[in-house]
């Protein structure tokens, strides 16, 4: 392995070279490398473009199989394919008619439905709070109390109820919260470094799609 570079090493070499290309010009004044790294980042846009086409294929093929197998609720898959084709056409064809149709369909309908999905988050957080903030020990007491204080202060009415709430919230956010978040961030940064180095050295193969060669060393 030390002498011959096999097919298996190609992804490792690509990863190592590209990550170094991103890292080096960030720390060292090297205009040529810098423009190269921006160019590589720009080249990712068409690659991701191909990926999106592949994504469209994934969705359509899955639903075509569903229709052909007449599995449960296959009628919905026909609706899905129809919307797929409609949006593909109106967002792709550069003519005023289709552009109008696109603005109409995307801005007035689909955009709002999208927002409705995102709006579910807030409601779901209410039940998460209901289940997640049970006081069982001192830790969960702190978890719950800090949440309650910040919530009272954030409610526009909170200040009228408890005048000291914004002050208490600001203290929590500026000191204990900041300390916790800061340490989390430092830990995550170190975790990223360890993962990056082990992938660049070719120890972490799964991220590159290589899972067969992994043998547990006893």
């Amino acid at each position, binding site marked *: 392995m030390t002498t011959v570079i096999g097919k298996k090493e190609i992804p490792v070499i690509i990863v190592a070279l590209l990550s170094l290309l991103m890292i080096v010009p960030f720390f060292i004044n090297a205009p040529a490398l810098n423009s190269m790294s921006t160019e590589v980042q720009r080249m*990712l846009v*068409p690659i991701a473009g191909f*990926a999106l086409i592949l994504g469209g294929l994934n969705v359509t093929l899955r639903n075509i199989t569903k229709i052909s197998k007449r599995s449960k609720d296959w009628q919905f898959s026909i609706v899905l394919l129809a919307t797929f084709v409609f949006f593909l056409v109106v967002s792709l064809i550069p003519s005023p008619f289709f552009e109008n149709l696109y603005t109409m369909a995307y801005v007035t309908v689909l955009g709002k439905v999208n927002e409705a999905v995102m709006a579910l988050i807030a409601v779901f957080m209410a039940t998460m709070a209901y289940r997640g903030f049970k006081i069982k020990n001192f830790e969960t007491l702190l978890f719950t109390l800090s949440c309650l204080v910040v919530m009272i202060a954030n409610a526009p009415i909170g200040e009228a109820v408890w005048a000291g709430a914004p002050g208490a919230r600001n203290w929590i956010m500026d000191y204990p919260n900041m300390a916790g978040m800061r340490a989390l961030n430092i830990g995550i940064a170190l975790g990223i*470094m360890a993962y990056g180095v082990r992938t660049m050295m070719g120890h972490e193969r799964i991220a590159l799609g290589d899972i067969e060669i992994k043998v547990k060393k006893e």
Partner: protein
Amino acid sequence: MTSYDVALSLLASGLVLMILSFLYRESGWFSFAEHIVVGGLSGYGAAIGIKNVYYQGLTPLAQGQFWYILAIIAGLLLFAGLFKTLAWWVRVPTAIMIGTGIGLNMRAAVETQVTAQLIDTVRSINTASLTTNINNLIIVIGVCCVIMFFFFSTESKGALKPVGIVGRYFLMISLGSSFAYAVMGRTSLMIARFQDLLSYPNYYTIFLAVALVLYDILKQRKTS
């Protein structure tokens, strides 16, 4: 408002209510709206993909930036997964994206997640104001203890045990308060939806939805 606008508006609020119907229970209504969202956005996504390939890949290539041929080849290799014998080759384009991702993440990690944080943590605890001193001390103790809490190679016992416990307390306070902060922004989305739903002509759809839900409740009462 033309009748055309009214129809579109009713269609949109109908679909919005179908999504919200999930809060009551999972049903065909939700499935229907979900299929519209998935179909619409994957179609839109594929169109964006084609546009990106054309404008950001083929156009520069045609203008003589020959190295874009590499991007086109890499992009095409993504489709190798569709053929069993060629599947291995998808590792090349994914390696390109993973390499860039690792590089960008690693270089940003030190500056934003370590150095900037350290600069703000190194504070004096001997200032004129006692409160500032105490607060600064809290930050220093908090940061150190939470870092120690995430230690993997030593067991948390003896002198290290209280450090880990204090770290856990700090972590819990900060997670609780962050949760509360996230509520505010998310609620705004729901408020905007409802301001829309409660305006003309959309509120008619609400009556319909409420009627449907009540009917369903009665029906389930009867069967059970």
